[in-house]
């Protein structure tokens, strides 16, 4: 009787060459050549701009201690904009053969037929000067399928031995962005990215732990420690007790801080603040620039050259990102704006785009010290499903997740059942007790925030979630 062969574990590396070379991401030369071809296919005058985004990702995902997906993907997209006297047409395609590019161009030109010239339109920008951050990591780029699977196996193993269920996602990527135009725009930059997150649950489903982080450099991600944190949180959060919802002193780990502060970062838009009712609107037609919006210990800044935070130094139109302090010592200093806004309102033509990457200032209090100085309060790992309920106040809701503990008299007493909150970042970040050291968190846009202890955080109901 022939015995069927054992199925190969997905943790076992596949015997094939990793995807590499030109198929991973487009080089400067690739982008220039593509732009030249599109230019040659373009007819009818006017200007032409292309935005190229070229991604390679290598990933490994496991759930319930078992690999589920692993692979390399590459996706290259070009967004073609034709501008004929202010009438613009834009089409995207991911097919780069001549026929597809021609079709895209003709489509963009067809769109223009419906629109006459627009005197208010901002013409395509010309050549810009950019900062040059260090965003490339050979360690990240070189993490092929085999080391990825080996790393993942090592991370899942301790949970397996402890009879816990682990899940995780490991991704490394390379991204090249280019904006090239007949008006002289000539931007190209490439970056690497890495992210890792691990969730560990117990078989009875009563305990859950999570840890994760993103970074340009895989070498700076201590995945083993993160996996261990997730495992420990799972154990420590098992069999939670229900406590009464209400206002608590809350120690938020950095991931939770980011989840609340991100809502405020998304709203940093000057036109919206002056013309609609956003959280930065003082009164119709006037923003809160110059006014205190957060605790004076909070400074929110962004800088493509920040060695821990760096990001591609231009936006989707090719306008350069520049260092900016949105909030300085609690006072709103700047809101993002477009070139059109700059021209019409500020008397200059330099836009201030928002990269959504930010650094939040912190303090020197460790989470342990925050706990030790708390008479009664809660410690939360992160939140889930954070949604804004009311734009003008940023009142938001969501639930705690992956570990919530009661603190009494400076000590963690026991895990508590998750709760839903109804709270605004504008309230809690004006009600800060202590701030910790800022660290990178798990986020699509590079983000550095500290752990924060806030007073009177409003948990509004129990949530039947792990």
């Amino acid at each position, binding site marked *: 009787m022939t015995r069927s062969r054992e199925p190969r574990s997905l943790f076992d590396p596949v015997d094939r060459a990793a995807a590499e070379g030109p198929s991973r991401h487009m080089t400067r030369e690739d982008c220039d050549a593509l732009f030249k071809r599109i230019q040659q296919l373009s007819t009818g005058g006017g200007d032409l701009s292309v935005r190229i985004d070229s991604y390679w990702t290598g990933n490994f995902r496991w759930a319930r201690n078992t690999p589920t997906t692993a692979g390399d993907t590459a996706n290259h997209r070009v967004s073609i904009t034709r501008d004929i006297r202010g009438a613009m047409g*834009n089409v995207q395609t*991911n097919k780069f053969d001549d026929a597809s590019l021609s079709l895209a161009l003709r489509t963009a030109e067809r*769109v223009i037929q419906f629109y006459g010239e627009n*005197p208010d339109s901002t013409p395509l920008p010309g050549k810009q000067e950019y900062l040059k951050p260090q965003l490339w990591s050979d360690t990240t780029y070189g993490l092929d399928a085999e080391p990825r699977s080996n790393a993942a196996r090592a991370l899942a193993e301790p949970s397996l031995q402890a009879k816990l269920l682990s899940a995780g996602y490991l991704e490394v990527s390379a991204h090249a962005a280019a904006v090239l135009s007949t008006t002289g725009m000539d931007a190209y930059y490439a970056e690497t990215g890495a992210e890792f997150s691990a969730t560990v649950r117990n078989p009875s489903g009563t305990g859950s732990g999570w840890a994760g982080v993103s970074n340009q450099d895989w070498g700076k991600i201590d995945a083993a420690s993160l996996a261990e944190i997730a495992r420990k949180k799972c154990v420590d959060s098992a069999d939670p007790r229900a406590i009464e919802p209400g206002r608590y002193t809350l120690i938020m780990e950095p991931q939770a801080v980011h989840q609340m502060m991100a809502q405020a970062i998304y709203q940093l838009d000057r036109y919206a603040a002056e013309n609609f009712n956003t959280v930065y609107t003082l009164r119709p037609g006037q923003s809160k620039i110059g006014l205190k919006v957060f605790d004076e210990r909070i400074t929110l800044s962004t800088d493509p050259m920040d060695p821990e935070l760096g990001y591609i130094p231009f936006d989707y139109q090719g306008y350069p990102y520049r260092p900016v302090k949105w909030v300085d010592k609690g006072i709103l200093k700047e809101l993002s704006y477009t070139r059109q806004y700059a021209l*019409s309102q500020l008397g200059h033509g330099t836009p201030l785009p928002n990269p959504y990457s930010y650094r939040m200032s912190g303090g020197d209090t460790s989470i342990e010290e925050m706990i030790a100085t708390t008479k009664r309060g809660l410690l939360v790992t992160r939140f889930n499903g954070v949604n804004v309920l009311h734009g003008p106040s940023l009142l938001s809701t969501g639930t705690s997740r992956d570990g919530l503990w009661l603190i009494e008299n400076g000590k963690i007493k026991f895990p508590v059942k998750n709760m839903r909150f109804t709270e605004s970042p504008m309230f809690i970040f004006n009600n800060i007790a202590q701030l910790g050291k800022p660290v990178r968190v798990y986020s699509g846009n590079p983000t550095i925030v500290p752990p924060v202890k806030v007073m009177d955080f409003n948990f509004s109901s129990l949530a039947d979630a792990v």
Partner: protein
Amino acid sequence: MTSMQRETRTMRTSARALILVAGLVAAPVWSGMAQGSAPPEPDGYSKYWPGACVQAMSRSRSFYWRARQDTALYTSARDTLLDDVRRVARDCKERFGATTASLTGHDLIPLAEVLLATGDDAGAKAAVDRRLAEPDLKPVGVRAWTLAQVVNIFLDTRPARVDVARGYLRQLDALKGADAAPGQLRGWYALADYYEHVADDSAMVAASEEAIKAGKRLNDHDRKEFAGTIFNAYRNIAEAEADRTGDAAAPRKVLARASTDIGKLPRMAGSIAAWDTLYSRYGKKGATVLADVWISAQNDTLFPKAGKLTVLNFRPSRWNIPATRRLARQAGDSLDVALVYSTVGYFRGLGPLTAAAEVPEVRKYFFDELKINSSLAINETKYKRLPDGRRMPEPNVNDKAYRTGMGVSIVVLDREGIVRRIWTYWSNAYEPRIVATLKKYSQAATSSTSGSSEGRHE
């Protein structure tokens, strides 16, 4: 401003704001409704319920907003549906038409809209009647609101089914009580809006009066909620009076009525006062348009001029230049047209520009590219800087004389230079109205008694 105009303005703002993206992956896949994107297809959710199909129809309409502006389609309410809208509607009907019997509740009214767009009036009426027979429509308030929606869809399709809409309006009017009043207000206001766009002022006034009556039946909460609609009904009547008399008294009398009725409701006193200031300009001599720079096709530099009708265009743009050009050409020597422009510190994305640098750009645009055949007055806009760095323009002499903070677009002055008509917004539907106004005052005997002498015109 009618709701349709407001809607159109919002649409324009949104279109400018949105990022222009259309998808093209394996084959062209359209998405979005923004300026610069491609026409939408009935895809995504519209495969699953007729309401989304109707949204796709609306997106098709809004996509062609500029085309409509240029060709005066849609704004007149007398045209037919655009091909793209029909195509989407046909597609929707194919998806849902055969399963009409299985659709219930909120799907029936969108289905009626789809059927109307494909010319299936009987099917549309049957869908509406089925909806009206459903038990959840028994409460008067819900029924009234649904009937108002029904009135709207029969007026909103092309050509508008006015008789059918009026039939449902009768059903709506038969409902009793304050709960029915919001629906009745909206229903009658929709009819007034339609008549405004087909330039039937007497019917517009009658429908607006009915809307006002419905407004009086609202409870206190709803009166605050719908104060704007009630005011717009009054303003329809005031506009009709302004058009009829070309004088201040009649429209201001209507505003006085409005003030008595709704003046104490939130924000209404300010709106009424602003329009009252605007109407106070009627029947008075228009001030001479002054400019830092005059650029003239005819070498004329003073407007208005005695003995000629005058059109002042305070918002010269590509939207109204073709109509302005036609007016100037058709009226010949009997009409003077002036475009009145204030510098803004940039032009067509160029900037920052000084006033001296902006003028040649403005000149090039209007004369060389838009080929205007009228005079162009350009004033440098003085401004202050707010503490947050924003430029705060100050009204210039022409703004103070004519615009009064109301965003005036077109002003018509008679042969004695007396203000006879002011439009605060441009729509191509206004062109025939402007032509009619010019015709009226070109034929009218000059009346030296109707104007005051407070203007600076000599």
